[in-house]
């Protein structure tokens, strides 16, 4: 049973991403949205956390939320896929359930 996890909080401000990664079983997908997109960026104090998650999970980040915050695809950790709203819909369709980590 595959799960899509969404994270919408900055990893600097909350432990939401850590908690999500601690509970997400192998093979489930992670989508970073809203302030959660800061967790997808290269060169930050939390980059290693997400890089480690790539071994067991497919990880996505919502492009419009990145761009709103002045970030580009080039700043995203290698292996993380940037998706648009259509891609978000596709992900929810592809997975049986969605767990939103607020």
């Amino acid at each position, binding site marked *: 049973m595959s799960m899509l996890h969404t994270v*919408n*909080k*900055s990893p*600097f*401000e909350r432990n939401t991403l850590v908690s999500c990664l601690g509970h997400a079983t192998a093979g489930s997908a992670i989508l970073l949205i*809203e*302030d959660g997109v*800061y967790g997808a*960026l*290269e*060169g*930050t*104090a939390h*980059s290693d956390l997400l890089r480690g998650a790539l071994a067991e999970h497919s990880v996505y980040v919502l*492009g*419009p*939320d990145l*761009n*709103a*915050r*002045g*970030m*580009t695809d080039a700043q995203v950790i290698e292996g993380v896929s940037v998706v*648009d*709203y259509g891609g978000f819909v596709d992900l929810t369709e592809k997975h049986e359930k969605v767990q939103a980590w607020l």
Partner: protein
Amino acid sequence: MSEPWEEEGPGTIKKFMYVNRKPPYGTIYALESLEVVLIAAAFEQDVSMAFLDDGVYQLKKGQDTKGIGQKNFSPTYRALEGYDVEKLYVEAESLAERGLSEDDLLVPVEVMSREALAELMNEQDVILSF
């Protein structure tokens, strides 16, 4: 003719610091802080803004909000100078943790250490947190 709130003559000028610790768009804090700063600027107080923790993200260059259907309020930071809000302090440690440098910011600021910012906080009469 003087306005009613000016009748007691020139009031004491207090040092106000607005402390910004939240990133933009995910919550309303960053925008509300700007609104309050602009209002307060009309009262001719000694106003400064500090950006630390995720608050430094408010000043990130290149914000483009077309995709999320929200107003891009980042140009407002460049207009603050016109309201005599010229003291923008950014904490160096917060930038470094986020892989950012002064060049990533959209407005001239004074980057300072956490220690120096703490000192500055101690000197304030009023601190407002956002």
